[in-house]
């Protein structure tokens, strides 16, 4: 019979072992992608796969030389920043009004939009945007991606606005502040960190979104994600360049997510779980 502290230590070791195992499973594919992107072209398709190699930048150089990678990246940035900005512009006042009035249907309306399959909107958008000649325009892409960012902004900010004590607003109103002034001068500075998280999450999900750009962009406005398809076509024998593209596309969301990892879960569940 083992005494309690010894059992405890063994349980803790067993737990650590499981944690390491999970970490390895989670990390290995990503590490493999990054490693492959630095492999010389003859080694990336070597079989059996090699772990030791001389790292090279040739895949990245090849990628920027043979594909318009940089202009795709600029397109992605325009669409993502535009839709995040639009989401914040519309979402911040809406979240504030919902929190103040407790009338939640505007928030639920935007959430319902997030639950439906994107193709449901893409069909009518395609027909409508084609009629007014907007297929391939940044405007169409930014508007469509704002459908993704708006509910994120509203639902991440709702709990933040809710947590401000009512007395703060009431005091301001007694001093003769209008509702709009209360929002910009008093409430917004108090939820600044919430706005930062909302902006980052909106950016990540807009950057990652595939479907809309696939149909609504053209050669000039194609985003990185929509262009991923081309990289696969060209990269069927060039895994190195393909993995370099994948690494670069994943980099912005991963860096941003690492910045806000602590607050991410409550934001990602759109308020369903208080983390």
């Amino acid at each position, binding site marked *: 019979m083992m005494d309690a502290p010894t059992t405890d230590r063994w349980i*803790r070791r067993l737990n650590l072992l499981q*944690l390491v195992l999970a*970490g390895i*499973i*989670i990390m290995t*594919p*990503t590490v*493999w*992608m990054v490693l492959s992107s630095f492999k010389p072209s003859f080694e990336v398709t070597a*079989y059996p796969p090699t772990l030791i190699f001389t790292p090279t930048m040739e895949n990245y150089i090849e990628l920027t030389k043979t594909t318009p990678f940089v202009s795709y990246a600029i397109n992605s940035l325009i669409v993502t920043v535009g839709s995040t900005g639009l989401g914040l512009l519309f*979402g911040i*006042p*809406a979240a*504030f*009004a919902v929190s103040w009035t407790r009338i939640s249907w*505007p928030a639920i*309306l*935007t959430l319902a*939009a*997030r*639950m*439906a*399959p994107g*193709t*449901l*909107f893409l*069909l*009518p958008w395609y027909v*409508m945007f084609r009629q007014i000649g907007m297929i391939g325009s940044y405007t169409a892409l930014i508007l*469509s991606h704002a*459908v993704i960012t*708006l509910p994120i902004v509203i639902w991440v900010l709702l709990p933040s606005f809710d947590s401000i004590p009512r007395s703060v607003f009431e005091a301001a109103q007694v001093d003769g502040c209008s*509702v*709009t002034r209360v*929002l910009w001068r008093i409430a917004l500075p108090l939820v600044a960190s919430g706005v930062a998280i909302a902006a980052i999450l909106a950016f*990540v999900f807009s950057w*990652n979104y*595939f*479907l809309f750009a*696939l149909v609504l962009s053209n050669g000039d406005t194609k985003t990185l*994600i929509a262009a*991923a398809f081309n990289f696969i076509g060209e990269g069927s024998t060039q895994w190195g360049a*393909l*993995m370099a*593209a*994948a690494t670069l*596309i*994943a980099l912005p*969301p991963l860096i941003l*997510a*690492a910045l806000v*990892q*602590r607050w*991410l*879960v409550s934001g*990602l*569940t759109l308020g*369903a*779980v208080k*983390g």
Partner: protein
Amino acid sequence: MLDAAATLTQDRQRLELSALSAPAVIFTVAMIAFPVVYTIWLGFQSFSSTGKQSFVGLANYSKLIVDTEFWHGLWVTIALYVLSLVLQLVFGIWLALVLFHAKRLPGIVRSLFISPFMMPPVVAGMMWLVILDPSLGAANYILQCFGLPPSEWLASPTWVIPTVALIDSWQWTPYVALIVLGGLQSLPPSVYEAAQIDGASPFKTFQRITLPLLLPTIVTAAILRSVDLLRFFDIIYITTQGGPGNASNTLNIYGFRVGFEFFNIGYASALMLTLTAIVFGAVLAFNRLRGAVAW
């Protein structure tokens, strides 16, 4: 006199609050509500190859009933959904328990755990495409090292659904785990202490106490994953485009191809409305379940 002034301020206030939510509401109506109504109307139309459209009533929906590709797509969608959801919930709960007992989680470890679901699904598809390559991929090499036969993975009609479920589960299990971890951390510690005093084994404690208390959180995770899984698109479109043959042709992929590859907008609209009804049905069912397991 004072009353009138107060009412005036209140009216002004209400007006201002409406004005604040107006942009979001108008945007959503213009981009979502109106287009959805338009889709419903499109669902009653037929588009000829020359682009001429005509009203066909319920023809698109009766076509749906006899379309074997639709029923196949429904089967693929449900198989992929059930398999992925079960994998993600089971491993998500396991991972949450492991994380919960680790006590201290450095930021770097947390960043590591969220990295799969923060990267674009498209990138996940690209990297797994290379890893799972039937002839040169690292996955088959690892199988060989353990003396197992190599698999065709995404190239095999039998294995493509489990493989896609595996890729999605790699991406989203940590997400489920972090939600469940949030639930675990909000449980009152007193219940464990009581169980420990009663001499319950760790397994019994989990089965009889932790799991029932966690159910609402688990159902929440299931709802959030259901919405994504039932409209599965990105990873399949990048890796197989519904293939090999039509083995991974989910309803969302099928509807997309009918609409944007065959330009049969009317029939695609009927397909997408059906899929939307399925997604909302699942969410409502789970919501009821959450009500039933709440404490």
